[in-house]
């Protein structure tokens, strides 16, 4: 039997394409990438990144000054787009602020603040500078704490941190905790911002591409780190709901390797199958798959096997990483919101930058935008540690 669906009653997204839903939608439509050669701080790396312009000049002030760091600035910027904060306030008035849960995915939270503090250590004692506030910036929970504080919510609040599946799994946590009666509605989402840790870390692993990333391409050679924030307000769907619904979710572990995906995509396939099962849907009913599609040689190959195993070669799929870069812990929410826009507008986005599909890969990857009505669409998010999450969204044909 299908699970009780949740409606996305408000949503927003901010990334390298710009601030708010319209910036992302118009860039998806016209095929304009947000990627640029790396110009983050003084990082001297030959790679491309997806940076959100202007964060450097918009500090958090007043009551929120303690939270000031790039990650929370990005969260605030996103919360203020598309009337999202106003929708959360209206929900707080309806349900009570203590009955709305906050489930935020982040991988590195505000580690950038600690990176900067380590560069300003006292040369004699090694101590960190006075103004460094670990709890409100770097700590994993800082992102969730800032968001609940900014929105004036006082219910359960968690930071989910499972690398690049974090903000996809936030949807699963919200569904469970609402089902358990711990909250009546939920703000879900994620935020991850550029930092030296991920830029130099992926570089050290040889996974950062010196070019705009090319998912599924025969010449794909790695990912581009991006930054993003996005949020959705989740409420139990009404009968005949016309809004975009979370119809199913699936989660699994690879039990294989800390950084390398299972070569046959066994865990990924399990997550997709469970998302379908929770929606009581068959693979052939899915109209579009937004792939994790990071453009590293091994990740794309593993995901391709998994998609072929569950869906075969005919389901249209694409990776939108060529627009935004890989926004890590925010990838799940970013692509969930993209999928919701695609369902509403009848859009299957291209796999931007990809020129020649790798003949070794068989999934139905599309290279040009297509327009057609969509009823069900899947979003994949996978991460280090072998963590997998697939979300299935649907919309009543209207």
């Amino acid at each position: 039997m299908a699970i009780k669906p949740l409606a996305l009653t408000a949503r927003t997204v901010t990334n390298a394409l710009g601030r708010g839903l319209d910036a992302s939608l118009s860039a998806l439509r016209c095929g304009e990438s947000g990627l640029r050669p790396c110009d983050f701080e003084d990082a001297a790396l030959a790679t491309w990144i997806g940076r959100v312009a202007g964060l450097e000049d918009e500090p958090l002030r007043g009551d929120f000054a303690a939270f000031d760091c790039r990650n929370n600035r990005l969260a605030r910027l996103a919360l203020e787009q598309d009337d999202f904060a106003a929708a959360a306030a209206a929900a707080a008035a309806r349900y009570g602020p203590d009955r709305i849960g906050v489930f935020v995915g982040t991988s590195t939270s505000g580690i950038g603040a600690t990176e900067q503090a380590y560069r300003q250590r006292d040369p004699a004692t090694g101590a960190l500078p006075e103004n460094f506030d670990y709890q409100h910036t770097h700590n994993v929970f800082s992102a969730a704490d800032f968001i609940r504080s900014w929105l004036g919510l006082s219910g359960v609040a968690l930071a989910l941190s499972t690398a690049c599946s974090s903000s996809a799994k936030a949807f699963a946590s919200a569904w469970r905790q609402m089902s358990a009666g711990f909250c009546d509605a939920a703000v879900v989402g994620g935020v991850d911002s550029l930092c030296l840790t991920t830029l130099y870390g992926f570089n050290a692993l040889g996974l950062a591409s010196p070019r705009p990333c090319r998912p599924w391409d025969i010449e794909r050679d790695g990912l581009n780190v991006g930054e993003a924030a996005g949020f959705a307000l989740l409420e139990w769907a009404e009968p005949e709901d016309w809004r975009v619904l979370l119809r199913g979710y699936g989660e699994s572990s690879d039990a294989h390797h800390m950084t390398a995906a299972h070569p046959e995509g066994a865990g990924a396939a399990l997550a997709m199958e469970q998302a379908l099962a929770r929606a009581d849907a068959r693979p052939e009913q899915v109209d579009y798959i937004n792939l994790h599609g990071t453009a590293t040689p091994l990740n794309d190959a593993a995901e391709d096997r998994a998609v072929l195993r569950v869906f075969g070669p005919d389901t249209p799929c694409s990776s939108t990483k060529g627009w935004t870069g890989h926004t890590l812990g925010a990838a799940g929410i970013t692509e969930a919101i993209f999928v919701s826009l695609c369902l509403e507008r009848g859009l299957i986005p291209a796999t931007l930058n990809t020129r020649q599909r790798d003949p070794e890969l068989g999934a139905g990857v599309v290279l040009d935008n297509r327009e057609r009505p969509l009823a069900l669409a899947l979003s994949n998010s996978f991460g280090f540690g072998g963590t997998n999450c697939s979300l299935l969204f649907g919309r009543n044909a209207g």
Partner: protein
Amino acid sequence: MKALTVESVGLCAPGLPSWAAGRAALAGERAYAPEPLPAIAASLLPANERRRVTATIKLALHAAQEAVGSASATPDGKLAAALPTVFASSGGDSEVLDNICAALALPDRAVSPVHFHQSVHNTPSGYWSIATGCRHPSSSLSAYDGSFGGGLMETAALAWAEATRVLLVAYDLPPPFPLSDRRRIVAPFALALLLNPNPARGLATLRLEPAAPSTATPLADPELERLRSGNPAARGLPLLCAIARRRAESILLAGRGGGLRVEVEPA
């Protein structure tokens, strides 16, 4: 209020090297003495991985292993592989994060690839899944000082939704200098609870209810209270004390991520 059965417990902290060895001190049958933890072997992991794992990973896995080892097995004997898991930690692996931030402060910014992949919050979860062959879902989360309570809510919600046993592992370690100046954690602490959503043979029944985050229930013993208030994972100690004493208690867990009332009813 829906209930959960605590089937088994894992524990690893100074003076409490396991639930089996620490139970008497938590019950007040003998004085609690915070003796330093002996070295932990990480025997669950293959030899090549064992060399690379940090104190955080070893501590979390050690507590998880005790809880699973002392629970009633599945018919095929592979209990660990059959359990969804929730890993709760305030700050994750601060030794690894310190290493990375220190490397990034030097001119060549040579981040170690091993440190980078171990920097994610879900590293212990990943190693547990590899070591046990478990492909079930796993969450890794933080709610700062409320991480244990947040983890317990996530575990309960998962167990009820899937009608399956779930393993909760909560752990935190003192960060190295200079982070130690800004985050006070007094001692390493890990606890694991194997929770069953159905009535079952076990140590106690828990009932959970969100509550206003007021003052948390403290412990009477000053040394145990120092541990409870000095490590986010040790916020779970009042539950363990009630179970060890076989005494019904209503315990309040506080935190900025919402409060939680836990009714403990020993079996």
